[in-house]
């Protein structure tokens, strides 16, 4: 039974099915079930496990044995990774403390159990370099971490240098923009200070707008941010929120008012004060506890394969008639 399961013909069927599954998975289409990959991978894993036990071509040659065990481990680790992973996005404003509540588009495996709630950092400022023609270059994003004895540690992250905390990896993205900080002073009740994230900048330079309805009212307040950032297509430029200024155009109930930081406007249900202009940074959040293991297992596997070929290629001279098929190695 095990020998039948270990058949090379069965391996070929599994590989052809896996190739079909991979082709169907191109672009992660919603209509394609993950089973198109799981089924062939499960078949191949069974076939491989049986071959490791029963096939002397594999289990009597150390290099090939290591390679196939690592191949099996890779499949298992990748599966475990999907069951325990977390993928999410985050928009965090300058001086804002990270909170799990701010995560968006969260996708996680059923066995995910990381220490996300233990993560503490505060977002600082950031700069993004642009080449002529508004081509994005390096991002330098400042984050503040709690250090020993209540000290604060500053770390610069960006692009391929993620912030890694509790094995969660926070990668800066192209998604970043400006945030007016506003205080709403209702006619009745306590003042509330909050922020309105404007669309990504400079991607949506032409539509820096958003809207908000104060709690307990039906009054929609529309915001349009007129930015002066020095952005230019003609030469290199650095996006830096500290060098940017903005005028906030507030429209409500047919009334249009332009606000500078510190200005306020009276509306039907209260007063709105434009406190300051700051920035937000978009991060991709990634967690997969298996990635280091996956790396080492695949590397060891390839070295096993290399060892096998090294031995094999040295046994039979390169230009001889010797047959390499079957067990004549």
């Amino acid at each position, binding site marked *: 039974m095990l020998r039948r399961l270990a058949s090379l013909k069965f391996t070929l069927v599994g*590989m052809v099915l896996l190739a079909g599954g991979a082709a169907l998975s191109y672009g992660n289409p919603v209509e394609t079930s993950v089973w198109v990959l799981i089924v062939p991978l499960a078949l191949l894993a069974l076939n491989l496990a049986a071959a490791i036990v029963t096939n002397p071509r594999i289990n009597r040659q150390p290099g090939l044995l290591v390679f196939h065990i690592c191949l099996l481990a890779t499949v298992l680790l990748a599966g475990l990774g999907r069951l325990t992973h977390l993928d999410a996005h985050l928009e965090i404003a300058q001086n804002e403390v990270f909170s799990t509540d701010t995560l968006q588009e969260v996708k996680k495996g059923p066995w995910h159990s990381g220490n996300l709630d233990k993560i503490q950092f505060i977002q600082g400022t950031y700069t993004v370099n642009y080449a002529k023609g508004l*081509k*994005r270059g390096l991002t330098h994003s400042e984050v503040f971490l709690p250090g020993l004895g209540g000290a604060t540690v500053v770390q610069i992250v960006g692009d391929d240098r993620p912030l890694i905390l509790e094995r969660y990896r926070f990668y800066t993205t192209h998604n970043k923009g400006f945030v007016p900080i506003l205080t709403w002073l209702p006619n009745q009740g306590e003042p509330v200070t909050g922020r309105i994230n404007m669309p990504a900048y400079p991607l949506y330079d032409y539509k820096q707008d958003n809207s908000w309805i104060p709690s307990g009212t039906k009054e929609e307040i529309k915001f349009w941010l007129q930015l002066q950032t020095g952005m230019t297509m003609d030469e290199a430029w650095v996006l830096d929120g500290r060098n940017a200024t903005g005028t906030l155009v507030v429209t409500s109930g047919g009334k249009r008012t332009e606000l500078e930081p510190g200005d306020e406007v009276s509306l039907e249900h209260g007063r709105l004060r434009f406190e300051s202009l700051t920035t937000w940074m978009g991060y991709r959040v990634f967690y997969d506890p298996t990635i280091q293991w996956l790396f080492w297992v695949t590397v060891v596997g390839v070295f096993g394969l290399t060892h096998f070929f090294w031995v094999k290629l040295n046994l039979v001279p*390169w230009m001889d008639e010797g047959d390499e098929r079957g067990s004549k190695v």
Partner: protein
Amino acid sequence: MNIVAEQPWLWAGLGAYLVATLVAMWGVSPRSENSALVANKTHEKLVLGFIVLGVLLLTVAIAARWIRIGHGPWISLFELLMSQVWSLGLIFAVLYWKLPGLRPSTVIVMPVMWILGSWVLLLEPGISHFPATYYNVWKWSHVGLGKIFLALLLAGVGLGGVMILRTTERGRTWFRAMPSDAVIDKLAWRMMMLALVFDSLMLIAGAVWAQDAWGRYWAWDSLETSAFLTWIFLAIGLHVRLTYKIKPWVSGAIIIGVFIMAFSTYFGIPYISTSAHKGMV
């Protein structure tokens, strides 16, 4: 038309490859059989010499472009093709030198390089933008391993092509100086085995780079899917050869099939897909 710094060197390098191709073709032709140059294998030294000269000239072309635009040949199709023509020539020259048995297959290998060479001549050598994700050091290993992988596949294609052409009378005449099909088949699949090692390492390095660059090591984007299919086709080819006694021409056809898949992964998919990966950003 403005001629930029790298172009004269590029043309000269491709010219040297062309001379190598013509000498190799003359060497396999039955008309040259009685020539002293062929009889004492001097023409093989000429072929190797012109390939090496081409590589040296292309090295200068790449360096000139690097100095002109401030970064290596990583981004545009023009740069990728130029750098592939360089690396394929370099690695094939080493194989040509070390493995005399494959030398006549140059008449198949060099025209494939010429497809790339002709293609690059049709492209604008405009300045490309160096994306932030390309500062990552894993780029070097990913690209370097990929170059070795493709060159080994190309050497396999040369040998596979010989096995296919030898089913014809003309092919048997051209490749009369080469070893038997059994030896060529063995040599071709050794190239495939080594290609599998370098392909696997390239995928690992690429996954590490993707994790750093885009925050995920695998996402089934167009290039990743195509690269994985190339790897699995190569693995299928190796297992087919282990499982069945296949005829040499079938063996050659499998190798060429894997190469076509790899070729489209390198030079097709990144430039027709609209995915974020796109091979460059």
